[in-house]
């Protein structure tokens, strides 16, 4: 109790230096949390294979969207999967430019939207078959701001946005159309890029994928849905790797700043430690006081930085890079990691020089200026 009251007095009296420490840690904590949020968002949630579609795509296309499957592939997939597929359907998959934004246009038979692609209607309604209508995913709000009720021109045709969808497993901002309407939009020239095979309940998805791959002609490749997503994510400026590097830098920056700030502050007060030791305070008691002081300041700095990060990510929970939508909200693990880092490393930053000072002759501490 005496220690805490002394610390309270010391912090109050030395509030400028304390505030400086808090203000120095806070923006680093904010940056750390946002970078960690972006990093986590880029990686996306892991979806079990049993809940993923097996996708049949062109093997040598630069990316999935630039391929075009032979119509016979759809029949081959149906024949190969047989009873092990709950559904086998074609899918148009093309990036389109809408204003200044690139989004993905995905089109599948309306009957497949829920069962095969797992789309859930959040508000509005699904497009009517054959109508100039489309639905948009949640990521579209971040990428374009489109919402149900809006009208959007695509390739010279004005489409009405009828509803918004949640599309699990995809990190891309997408507009969804009925397959037939999209096929007409491209006048049949686009063909289709994907055959989506939904494994039937109880089917081993890996065995099904392997069987489809074995039956596929050389120009065709077979992947799980997540592999396609990850490949596209990687092509978006190798975001996955970059995010991991950025997260590593953020961790190091937070640790480095916390350690050095506290160590520097303590270095300026070695003489004070000498005075306290001359009065008879034991080195252990002084180390404890110094560590607690640093932990309090680091906790305050982290809390301030975390509040700023929370405010920023609540105001802008997602950002869009081309059609790639990233949820920037930090995870619970990021909040905890940041707190442990900021507080733990600050404690170490105080303890190491305090312990070192405790081993020096008091005379030399008192000679510090």
């Amino acid at each position: 109790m005496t220690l805490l009251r002394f610390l309270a007095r010391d912090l109050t009296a030395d509030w400028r230096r304390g505030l400086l420490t808090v203000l120095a840690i806070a923006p680093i904590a904010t940056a750390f949390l946002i970078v960690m949020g972006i990093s986590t968002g880029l990686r996306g949630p892991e979806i079990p294979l049993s809940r993923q579609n097996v996708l049949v795509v062109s093997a040598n296309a630069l990316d999935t969207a630039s391929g075009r499957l032979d119509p016979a592939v759809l029949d081959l997939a149906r024949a190969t999967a047989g009873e092990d597929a709950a559904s086998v359907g074609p899918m148009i998959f093309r990036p389109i430019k809408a204003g200044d934004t690139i989004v993905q246009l995905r089109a599948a038979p309306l009957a497949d939207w829920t069962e095969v692609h797992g789309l859930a209607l959040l508000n509005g309604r699904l497009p009517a078959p054959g109508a100039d209508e489309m639905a948009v995913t949640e990521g579209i709000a971040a990428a374009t701001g489109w919402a149900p009720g809006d009208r959007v021109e695509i390739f010279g045709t004005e489409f009405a946005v009828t509803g918004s969808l949640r599309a699990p497993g995809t990190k891309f901002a997408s507009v969804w159309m009925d397959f037939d309407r999209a096929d007409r939009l491209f006048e049949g020239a686009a063909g289709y890029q994907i055959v989506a095979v939904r494994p039937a309940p109880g089917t081993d998805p890996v065995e099904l994928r392997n069987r489809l791959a074995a039956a596929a002609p050389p120009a065709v490749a077979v992947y799980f849905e997540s592999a396609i997503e990850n490949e596209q994510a990687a092509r978006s400026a190798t975001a996955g790797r970059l995010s991991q590097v950025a997260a590593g830098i953020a961790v190091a920056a937070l640790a480095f700043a916390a350690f050095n700030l506290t160590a520097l502050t303590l270095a300026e007060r070695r003489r004070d430690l000498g005075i306290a030791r001359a009065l008879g305070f034991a080195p252990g008691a002084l180390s404890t006081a110094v560590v607690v002081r640093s932990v309090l300041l680091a906790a305050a700095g982290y809390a301030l930085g975390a509040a700023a990060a929370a405010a920023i990510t609540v105001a802008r929970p997602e950002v869009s890079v081309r059609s790639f939508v990233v949820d920037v909200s930090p995870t619970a693990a990021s909040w905890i990691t940041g707190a442990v880092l900021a507080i733990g490393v600050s404690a170490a930053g105080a303890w190491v020089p305090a312990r070192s000072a405790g081993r020096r002759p008091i005379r030399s501490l008192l000679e510090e200026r």
Partner: protein
Amino acid sequence: MAPPPQPPIIRASALAKAYRRAGGRVEALRGVDLVVEAGEFLMVMGPSGGGKSTLLNLIGGLDRADAGTLQVAGTDLGAASERALDAFRRTTVGFVFQFFNLLPTLDARDNVAMALVARGGDWDGARRRASDLLEKVDLGHRADHRPSELSGGEQQRVAIARAVAGAPPLLLADEPTGDVDGETTATIMDVLSGLNRTRGVTVVMVTHDISLTGYATRHVELRDGRISP
């Protein structure tokens, strides 16, 4: 019946201490023998660099000797553990430094209270006692001021109040008047002398100001690391 004779409060024998400095090894003390009886006011005089502050640091347990023996108030400082030295500083000695060595972030009252807190006192009680001590050095009205808001003389009186807060039997003063004006010098010396005469506190004071010898009961000269009576 006469009280039994008290053992000397300080007994130093062949005390030696050297430092490494940029220019090489400096032998600050070269075999100092010194005995100080309880209740004495000993003034250690001599030129700068003669080893006076080093001797005081050793007596106060702020540093350890390289050779020789040193007993202070029954504690063998050469053999004492670090923990024992901490306890020794808490209970046996009070320090008054030339440059005051007050904690800059604390006000005068809290600076004095710190010495009592170090001895295990509670914060509120320590602050009350500190206020009383500041009154005794005529600084009651300056108790809420920080060192930067006090004059050199006032800071030194705060340092004296802190040094005697725990009622130690031994007060070590290292050039306590070295950084104050003549009028303040007299005030500080009166306080130290009063503590020696009225409370029986043993005072060992280092100075090179020869005009202050009148306050002491004895003085010795330390020159080139050796004492001459």
